């Protein structure tokens, strides 16, 4: 399996979004990696306090930011979390948050490897 097919980032989408400017793509992914831990923490606080409004706001932000860089798998789970929170259903919110964190960790690890090996 090639590296591209294993990538948790949709490179084709990211390149198109950044107009084939790799330095900008790298900067954008860096911004995502820097901002996302606080967003995940916000969702965690919402889950712990059983507040669907807080969970929904955090999941909404995560959905938008992950899709902006082509981290589609993070975006998918964020969308599910947002939809459930909008319906005030937090039954499996903790599980979905765990899934979002795991998928984010994959993006983080991949990005560090990918861009450290890119000249």
């Amino acid at each position, binding site marked *: 399996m090639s590296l591209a097919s294993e990538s948790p980032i949709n490179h084709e*989408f990211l390149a*198109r*979004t950044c*107009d084939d400017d790799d330095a*900008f793509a790298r*900067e*954008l992914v860096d*911004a*995502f990696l*820097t*901002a996302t831990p606080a967003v995940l923490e916000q969702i965690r606080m919402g889950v712990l306090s059983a507040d669907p409004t807080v969970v929904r*706001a955090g999941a*909404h*932000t995560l*959905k*938008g*930011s992950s*899709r*902006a*860089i082509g981290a589609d798998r993070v975006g998918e789970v964020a969308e599910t979390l947002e939809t459930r929170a909008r319906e005030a259903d937090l039954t499996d919110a903790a599980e979905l948050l765990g899934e979002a964190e795991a998928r984010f960790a994959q993006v983080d690890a991949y990005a560090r490897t990918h861009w450290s090996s890119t000249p």
Partner: protein
Amino acid sequence: MRILIAEDDPTSQLLLTRTLEKLGHDVMATDNGRTAWERFRAEPISVVITDWMMPDMDGLELCQRIRGHEKPDYTYVLILTSLSGKGRYLEGMDAGADDFITKPFDREELAARLRVCERILGLKQHVQRLEGLLPICSYCKKIRDDKDAWTNVEAYVAKRSSAAFTHSICPHCYETKVETEIARLKG
């Protein structure tokens, strides 16, 4: 164009700012609706691109405030959000938005929509210029006001601005009117 962004997510804000700058626009970025509203009131802005869900003041309220605020030039408002569906679209347009794009945006589509925006703003300015044309009598130079009444320039301007007049005589009128009258009086 001078574009004001209201976007609370740093990743989306960076992407939008850089994309617009690459398209040649002058960009100001804010991270919530309230700050955007303050900047909008303080500076001339051609276009506002706003997210919908934001802390403090959301994009819908920002849009409504912009439409309720009088400015000499029209401001084009574009909602850029990951909220989608016909209901959201209609709600946004009813709040006064001119356009609605869902995230993640396609840069070529955004560029095309901004070209349309530029055309619309150009037409608006053209209409404003036409509306600003004053009918003036070719002979006596009186101006016809919006109630179809003819009035002299001095009264017309005084009624519509804070300008005050001081009276003097220009060299041409001094020569043709005053000196002629003095000569007539001297007999």
